[in-house]
């Protein structure tokens, strides 16, 4: 019987080890002592890694900025859970944060909406936020949910204008993850920008069906380039695969959701960057006043939530830059309308 | 000649002594201070019931187990075997009851397995093949070295096993129940080979529980019972009765009384049925049989010729593709097991642990497995536990099932007792038709005798019994008529009193059609 006991205990050790390793990292970014009334506690749940060089990182960095602006970790406490692509896991994490007394719980993924609609009424004193969406569930009688989205098509349009002017072959490639949500907005806007500038250019779009399949994204970029594309763009965290291919083949790239210049300084022209800081500051102010939801936010050029970040290592020709500025201004003024 | 065999460097094995061997398994003393010795040129039979400790003893000689106490002497020198490799090194080979062959490999590859190749990276299969041909000629063991094992008949596979052992230079060969899977003719061939090997100085240990085999092949007999040596004696002068008494510890019935019964109406009528085997292809190709009230029809045949599939068809566990099964005048071709039970059929399956019982359940629960929905075992939707227990208790007593309690999980009972329990359960329903598939396989002589007597008793009361068995002795002892199945077809049906072993053996090998 002794070997059996040994086996069971060894298995138990290994199982614990496995569980410990694969549990989502739920570490407060800033260790704080006991919560006091003056500390504003924010928790966020990410579908991908907080440092994915894309959607999640845009929110994470914004939170850090807000924290710094408001007086550091002693004033704002931030906790996050990442890689929760699995919605039930994410829902558990959201509920967990809410019950631990966080003031604002952010569900950073459009797939979390249904769960949030169920959780929010159970915690009427907690403010929730989710995106990308504009549905605050007020129609369902819920008053403690904020919603946020980005008009990704606006930056897509402006970068499309630049892409059309920089392309020599007249073939431009877009590599997207799935044909929906934020990615689709961006892709559609980009295509409109190209065709508004050079109506005869070809814009080819591929979707890989996954937010994280780096390998297939790289293959998609290779295929686009073999098909003659000399300017590429794409969306989702898996585009790092495509950027690598572009770097090897010396093909230009436009970034989306996050400043991707550092991945390949020689070929990234610019990136559309989401700046959630004003949105977050407004939300926090409302929460501190006792308003826990009901407001929807949209990042646009007009409210400076969307920014075209140029790569300092890449010199954009003056005419291209001025065309981009003109397009940006046109969108702000309403002279140019981009179909979402 | 044996010098050419002893080629792997060991000294020729002249004598093996096992002294005071003790081997314990959890809850069982498998070998209790066993002394055993064997000499070159001898065919030594190791006789005993299932569970007497024969295989356990030999597995220690072959290095598969290590004795808890006692020692093994080879040519007078003490040896410790840590694995079969050590035993092989010492010149010992073993032919297991379940062949140790890899079906997807060829004969040559199976023989070469585990050998040290003379070439560093490549297999020298051609060299191995040449030697296989040499060996098979030398000992009259016909095999095709290039054939895949799955293509071979059971008898041929056994020859591969023997060649495999000889190739490794085995002077001593342990054969564990080697005849269980063979036709009478194949048994004869095997015995010839064994005699030939003994003559050139090989040592053979022949494990068996079949008395007549032991008497016909061996020169010396050691009998084991309950892990202890009962006695060891030369074969000359031994009789079946004396050996049986040593094995069981009491006299056993040599010949059953089988009073004439006038066969009555036809109870089970199987009309030209076909069914698919698990691998595709037809396992049954037009089997027709009829069994009458008060009759035992024995179905003989070598394992794997469609017996299992036929039993499953009759039990309602396997669909019949074509043909009909009539049970007491009712067409049950597509009936469920429950409907068949209702129509008066009892079924004793071959795989009693898989089909006939649930081994984690208690004795009492297994007893009501089929009738749990009926009075007196159920009241409405509830089980009447008291009725179940009292009925189970009385039947268990009547059928002499040895169990510590009614709540003991079935898996803790011996094979013989489980089979008696299933028999008790099936027969307590007084079936009109009984389909018994291998009812005594793996069951000790005492229990076998008991089961046989019960089957004959049923026959007296007018039950129509189809007895499917691979044990020709059992078929001969119980049947009124004997049908022989070969490759899914009935080769012939004969009266037991009018047939000979040779005739049955030929039919089992598919030779004549009568």
């Amino acid at each position: 019987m002794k070997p059996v006991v040994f086996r069971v205990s060894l298995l138990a050790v290994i199982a614990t080890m496995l569980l410990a390793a694969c549990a989502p990292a739920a570490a407060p970014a800033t260790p704080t002592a006991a919560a006091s009334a003056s500390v504003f506690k924010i928790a966020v749940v990410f579908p991908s890694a907080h440092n994915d060089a894309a959607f999640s990182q845009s929110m994470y960095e914004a939170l850090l900025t807000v924290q710094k602006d408001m007086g550091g970790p002693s004033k704002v406490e931030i906790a996050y859970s990442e890689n929760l692509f699995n919605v039930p896991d994410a829902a558990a994490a959201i509920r967990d944060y809410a019950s631990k007394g966080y003031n604002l719980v952010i569900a950073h993924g459009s797939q979390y909406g249904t769960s949030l609609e169920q959780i929010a009424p159970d915690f009427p004193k907690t403010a929730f936020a989710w995106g990308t969406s504009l549905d605050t569930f007020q129609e369902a009688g819920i008053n403690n949910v904020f919603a946020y989205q980005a008009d990704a098509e606006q930056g897509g349009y402006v970068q499309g204008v630049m892409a059309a002017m920089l392309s020599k072959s007249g073939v431009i490639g877009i590599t997207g993850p799935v044909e929906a949500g934020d990615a689709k907005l961006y892709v559609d806007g980009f295509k409109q920008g190209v065709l508004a500038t050079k109506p005869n250019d070809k814009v080819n779009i591929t979707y890989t069906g996954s937010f994280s399949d780096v390998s297939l994204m790289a293959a998609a970029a290779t295929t686009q380039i073999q098909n003659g594309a000399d300017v590429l763009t794409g969306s989702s965290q898996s585009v790092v695969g495509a950027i690598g291919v572009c770097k090897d083949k010396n093909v230009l790239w436009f970034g989306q959701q996050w400043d991707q210049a550092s991945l390949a300084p020689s070929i990234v022209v610019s990136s559309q960057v989401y700046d959630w800081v004003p949105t977050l500051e407004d939300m926090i102010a409302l929460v501190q006043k006792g308003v826990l939801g009901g407001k929807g936010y949209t990042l646009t050029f007009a409210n400076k939530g969307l920014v075209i970040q140029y790569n300092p290592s890449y010199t954009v020709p003056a005419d291209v830059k001025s065309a981009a500025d003109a397009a940006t201004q046109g969108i702000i003024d309403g002279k140019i309308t981009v179909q979402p | 000649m044996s010098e050419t065999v002893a080629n792997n460097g060991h000294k020729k094995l002249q004598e093996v002594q096992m002294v005071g061997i003790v081997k314990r398994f959890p809850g069982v003393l498998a070998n209790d201070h066993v002394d055993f010795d064997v000499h070159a040129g001898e065919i030594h039979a190791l006789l005993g019931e299932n569970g007497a400790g024969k295989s356990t003893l030999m597995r220690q000689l072959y290095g598969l187990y290590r004795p808890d106490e006692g020692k093994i002497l080879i040519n007078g020198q003490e040896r410790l075997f840590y694995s079969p490799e050590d035993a092989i090194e010492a010149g010992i080979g073993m032919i297991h009851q379940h062949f140790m062959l890899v079906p997807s490999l060829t004969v040559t590859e199976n023989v070469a397995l585990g050998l040290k190749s003379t070439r560093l990276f490549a297999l020298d299969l051609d060299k191995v093949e040449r030697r296989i041909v040499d060996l098979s000629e030398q000992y009259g063991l016909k095999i095709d070295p290039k054939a895949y094992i799955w293509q071979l008949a059971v008898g041929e596979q056994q020859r591969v096993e023997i060649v495999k052992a000889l190739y490794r230079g085995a002077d001593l060969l342990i054969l564990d129940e080697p005849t269980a899977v063979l036709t009478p003719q194949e048994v004869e061939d095997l015995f010839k080979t064994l005699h030939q090997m003994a003559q050139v100085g090989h040592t053979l240990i022949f494990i068996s529980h079949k008395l007549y085999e032991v008497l016909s092949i061996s020169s010396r007999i050691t009998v084991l019972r309950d892990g202890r040596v009962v006695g060891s004696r030369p074969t000359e002068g031994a009789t079946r009765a004396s050996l049986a008494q040593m094995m069981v510890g009491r006299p056993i019935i040599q010949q059953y009384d089988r009073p004439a019964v006038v066969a009555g109406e036809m109870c089970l009528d199987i009309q030209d049925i076909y069914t698919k085997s698990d691998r595709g292809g037809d396992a049954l190709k037009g089997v027709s049989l009829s069994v009458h009230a008060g009759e035992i029809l024995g179905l003989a045949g070598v394992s794997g010729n469609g017996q299992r599939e036929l039993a499953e068809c009759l039990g309602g566990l396997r669909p019949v593709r074509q043909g009909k099964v009539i049970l007491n005048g009712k067409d049950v071709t597509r009936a469920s097991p429950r409907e068949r039970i209702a129509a008066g059929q009892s079924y004793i399956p071959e795989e009693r642990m898989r089909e006939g019982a649930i081994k984690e359940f208690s004795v009492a629960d297994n007893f009501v497995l089929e009738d749990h929905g009926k009075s007196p075992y159920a009241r409405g939707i509830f089980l009447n536990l008291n009725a179940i227990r009292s009925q189970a208790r009385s039947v268990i007593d009547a059928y002499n099932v040895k169990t510590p309690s009614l709540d003991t999980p079935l898996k803790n009972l011996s094979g013989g007792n489980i089979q008696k329990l299933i028999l008790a359960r099936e027969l307590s329903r007084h079936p009109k038709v009984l389909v018994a598939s291998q009812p005594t396989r793996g069951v000790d002589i005492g229990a076998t005798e008991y089961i046989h007597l019960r089957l004959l008793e049923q026959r007296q009361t007018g039950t129509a019994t189809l007895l499917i068995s691979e044990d020709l002795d059992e078929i001969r002892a119980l049947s009124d008529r004997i049908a022989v199945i070969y490759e899914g077809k009935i080769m012939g049906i004969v009266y037991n009193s009018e047939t000979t072993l040779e005739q049955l053996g030929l039919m089992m090998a598919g030779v004549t059609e009568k």
Partner: protein
Amino acid sequence: MSDLFTLSVLMGIIVSGIRLATPYLFAAIGETFAQTSGVLNLGVEGIMLMGAFSGFYIASTTGSLWLGLLTAAVVGILMGLLMALVSVTLQAEQGISGIGLSLFGLGLSSLLFEKTIVSVVAISGFQPIRIPILGNIPYIGDALFDHSILVYAAFLLVPLSIYVLNHTPIGLKIRAVGQNPQAADSLGISVAKIRYLTVSFGGMMAGIAGASLSLALIDLFQENMTNGMGYIAVALVYFGGWNPLGVLGGSLLFSFVNAFQLWLQVKGVQIPSNIALMMPYVLTIVALAFAANRARQPTALDKPFERGES
């Protein structure tokens, strides 16, 4: 649509297909050895991730790609040994322990990545090597003979493993242990030793498969970058009928169809992207249904071995 069927598109499909197939080949050939000996290792995914991470980390800190590759191989062996310990020595349920290992690899590689490299950076990986003479053949040279060393190695692995499995003593032992461990044991072959060997070899190959992504094909590491490839590799072993040639066929089929559907999208063929994306999976399943070959299926697959049970 019409310009879809041109020579350059065909060559493009071949180039992409070969690159996509490379990690599958490494992982699936390694897994073929493990499964042939009777161990189903579902931990391939986790080992690939650990291989991808460790190879990338060492290569980016030391600047030596070869040192990175070696590290990935060693990490793969270690994880293979862990799998062998759990499934062979402790006889745990193989499917469950494999999934545990996968989750372990996913969690640990993500954790280490966050603690060391922090955010996605790229390195210069193994560069394509144009094979002399063969590489100068028009079209074919570009498609077949201008790849990185790891791509060539993956394809060379196929004939090599066929030879080892079918024509060497160790191959014979591996097959025997997977088909009838009792028989192998009775001939003095250590079942445990062989299974440790194959599972750690499989681990090494999975580690290299991961490194082929992070050091040769994509040149960066991202959390969960294998995205289920390890599981597809396990499926490819079944698809290939435990025959390296079949595994090669399955990997190429899956990868070529994947490359093809990208071209369909690029060429603007009017089918929804979701349908195009399903193609490799659907085709693989269809091929599997028609070409099912269970003859080489190891009978003892997924069954722990204990002496004395028969």
